[in-house]
């Protein structure tokens, strides 16, 4: 969790990873009207978006005098529930370039690096945030157009690339939804775990394309993701069945495909996702059901966990409703790592990939 960030941006509740606080904030009040409103707002100029659904975050849109606070900007973006965190970061970094007062390329790059570092340190547990920042830096500074003599034109070129990256990332969901339509056939049963906006987009698009399918949602304790997801799907007249987390193996026989999102995609091709994903993947693999992951390409991170404990822990306390004796420990990790051998395909904006291709993409991008 945040430990090295300036005081003003301290994590108000150190017990819970900021990442999950954001998600909680986003989903605390979810109504379809509000969702539609937010979507529409995002479709317009982002500055006009309504972003007042949550007051959890203190940072408003204030800019301190001359210093541009990237984290403020980031928080601004982040409040939109439909905007992925990494995209918000990318937009914030793009605005850093826009408002930068550097006069040389080197200075600009240093500024960018500082902004990126401060964003990353703001929430160290969010993989997509880190990965998004890294990728942005790579993508933007890799252009050979930086050798322009005129700094301003170089800067505008940089800005152009940054905004294009933001656009691509934002549209990633639509691309993924399009790619995955072929894999959802009529009469299929889809098991979904966790509340991923990408997966929701996929299912929504399928419903709009008049495909007949039904969805099994795991309850998703302690975040109640299943409840939220079933809420959403019900609005689109998709038959939904809620399962408690332990009933996955029991129902796996009736399931045709398993669909999950990802918090991060690691170099080995595995994914880091909400706690419970690994279990479901194991059961699905043993019963020969395909497991599909829908993840945008900015989630590709240069991590390589060897086992479950090899990651930065993300803590999410669980409220059992009854007081527990003091000697009883609770496993509070919020996510787990699913190794690549249990995944079938990854749907990304780069296309439909097999897990071993992730490393190829990362190598080509980073090296």
């Amino acid at each position: 969790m945040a430990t090295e960030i300036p005081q003003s941006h301290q994590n108000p509740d150190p017990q819970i990873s900021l990442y999950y606080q954001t998600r909680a904030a986003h989903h605390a009040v979810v109504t379809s009207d509000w969702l539609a409103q937010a979507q529409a707002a995002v479709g317009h100029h982002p500055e006009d978006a309504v972003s007042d659904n949550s007051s959890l975050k203190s940072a408003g849109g204030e800019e301190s005098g001359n210093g541009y606070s990237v984290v403020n900007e980031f928080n601004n973006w982040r409040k939109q529930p439909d905007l992925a965190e990494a995209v918000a970061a990318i937009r914030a970094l793009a605005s850093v370039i826009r408002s930068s007062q550097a006069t040389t390329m080197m200075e600009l790059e240093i500024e960018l690096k500082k902004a990126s570092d401060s964003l990353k340190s703001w929430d160290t547990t969010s993989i997509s945030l880190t990965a998004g920042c890294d990728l942005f830096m790579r993508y933007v500074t890799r252009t050979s157009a930086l050798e322009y003599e005129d700094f301003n034109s170089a800067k505008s070129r940089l800005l152009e690339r940054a905004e294009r990256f933001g656009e691509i990332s934002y549209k990633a969901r639509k691309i993924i939804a399009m790619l995955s339509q072929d894999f959802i056939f009529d009469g299929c049963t889809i098991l979904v775990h966790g509340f991923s906006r990408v997966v929701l987009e996929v299912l929504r698009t399928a419903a709009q394309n008049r495909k007949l399918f039904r969805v099994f949602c795991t309850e998703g304790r302690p975040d109640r993701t299943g409840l939220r997801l079933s809420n959403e799907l019900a609005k689109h007249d998709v038959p939904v069945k809620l399962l408690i987390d332990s009933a996955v193996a029991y129902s796996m026989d009736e399931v045709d495909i398993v669909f999950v999102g990802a918090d991060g995609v690691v170099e080995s091709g595995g994914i880091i996702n909400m706690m419970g994903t690994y279990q479901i993947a194991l059961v699905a693999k043993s019963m020969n059901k395909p497991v599909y992951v829908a993840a945008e390409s900015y989630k590709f991170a240069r991590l390589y966990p060897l086992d479950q404990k090899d990651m930065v822990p993300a803590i999410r306390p669980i409220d059992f409703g009854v007081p527990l004796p003091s000697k009883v420990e609770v496993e509070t990790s919020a996510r787990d790592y699913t190794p690549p051998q249990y995944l079938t395909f990854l749907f990304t904006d780069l296309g439909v990939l097999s897990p071993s291709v992730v490393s190829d993409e990362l190598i080509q991008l980073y090296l």
Partner: protein
Amino acid sequence: MDSRRVPRTVSDPKVRQVGFFAPPDRFQSGPPVPTSSSPPVSEISPSGNSLSPVMIPPPRNLSSDMSRHFPPAPISPLRGGRGAADSSIPVGSYNPSEFISPTATADFSEDAVSPGWSRKGNSAKFASSLPTGGIGMASVKQNNVPASGLATVSTVRMPKAVTEKGGATGEVQMEQQPGDSKTSKEKTTKAERRALQEAQRAAKAAAKSEGSKTQAAASGVNSINANSGKVPKMTPPKKDSSSVAASEKRGGDRQPDKDRKKDVPHPRMQFDDENRVEKAKRRSVVKQTEARSRVELFRHLPQYEHGTRLPDLESRFFQLDPIHPAVYKVGVRYLAGDISGGNARCIAMLQAFQESIRDYSTPPEKSLIRDLTTKINGYVSFLIECRPLSISMGNAIRFLKTRINKLALNLSESEAKASILLDIDRFINEKIILADKVIVKHAVTKIRDGDVLLTYGSSSAVEMILLHAHELGKQFRVVIVDSRPKLEGQMLLRRLVGQGISCTYTHINAVSYVMHEVTRVLLGASSVLSNGTVYSRVGTASVAMVAHQFRVPVLICCEAYKFHERVQLDSICSNELGDPDAIARVSGRTEINYLEGWTNSENLQLLNLIYDATPSDYVSMIITDYGMIPPTSVPVIVREYQREHLWI
């Protein structure tokens, strides 16, 4: 990996088939084809001798059938290269397809006798039949069947003199080819050729100064003769005992340019091919003695008598004009085993080349680029004679030659030399020394407090990682697994304990016993191939397999310059053979001498492999200077970054 190999059935415990051998040439002698007509059988050429390329199966009841089914001459390579008529057996190469239908072929060979049956009635000597038989058959195989990836296609011509298979046995065999119409013709031819060879051998023996060598050879020859039950009937009698002594086979291509152009890091010359070997021998600098009693399955790899060449080489130090002293020194050290380990050998070789380039001056009327390349090729051949190249050395040589070729033509000699020397320095620095630092940096992030790390043998990269992690203050302990005969782990143990790291030391027999308490396995590699296979010291595959079974992550630490685009599926088709005597003896325990005189035993061959291939399924991650990558990404690195060599 297991599903790829069908276990071979040993049909007769008395008779142990090792390696490949051709089913007896029943078709000539008329024994009935086995009922289960396996497809290979049908492919047999009309000449009757050709055996299907799908080989195998240990025939049963060989002794009884031997006389009946003694393979007639057609299989003999002596037939002046009648390739078509010969049976097709992959020479010494491991052809998995051959194991596909052991039962089918078993039937097939039930009353068929391998062509190599010893005339001396040693039905057990099937294995030995392979080399000579195999050679003949290999050529046929080539004609009949497109060589499998693993089969050695290089044996195009029938080797006239197979190997040290005693000429005596060959002779015996020759005489014992009854009812073979061609035999008489063969005999004449064979006799002629033998006479020719004897003359040549005599000349060679006369030229040889080392009496010991000939003695050793003679004794070796005798034992070979004793062992020679294995001579296949086709064995040309050319090679007789004395030829063994004289036949100092060396590995290494003697067409250095061609070889280099193929960019093959290992000397791929197949040692079963007599002609190539003869040619190579003629040009060799190092006269090596062919080892006695070689294992059939590995006849395609060179094996020499260790230690016999050292005194000879040392005495000729000042006579070897073509070889620069620095290169010579390095070669002798390889021979003696002083330098071992991929990085050490590569750096030593490159530094020796640097010395030689410093002293180099272009002869008049010659282009620097071409002449220097030729010289380097000569040095490389010399080094190969001392010890076959490792893949890392092969890559380094490829880099060097590319850089030489890319020299601008208008450079003066001193400029060109300076440029090459600089390139070599940069290669060593960037690809080896700095790469190791990057690897250490990545790897220590995977070591946590409380870890129990297991390592095998002695890898320079792993040692650096452990020392650095200890410096950083991480709390861990190390289990070092070691194995005979090299016992390399002891050196690593000494160094780690010297730094204060708590270590456990054990032999590889106990690896499954200790694995339950291990949290990570760190292994080094001689090379990583394109399909993710790790080519490393023999024993690594076993350790990785046990670790995989215990679900312990296996981390391979390997610099990127050791990657190669080759693909290898097993440990047999390309390997290195060490000194078999090292297995027979236990240092410091002279009372363990059960294997003394093992060479006299006909039934016994010792095999000392140096490398083995670990399949990619057992590897969790490869740590290179390009970061931590899964084994499936090795071809990406090879593709993207090997080309960097050309533009360093």
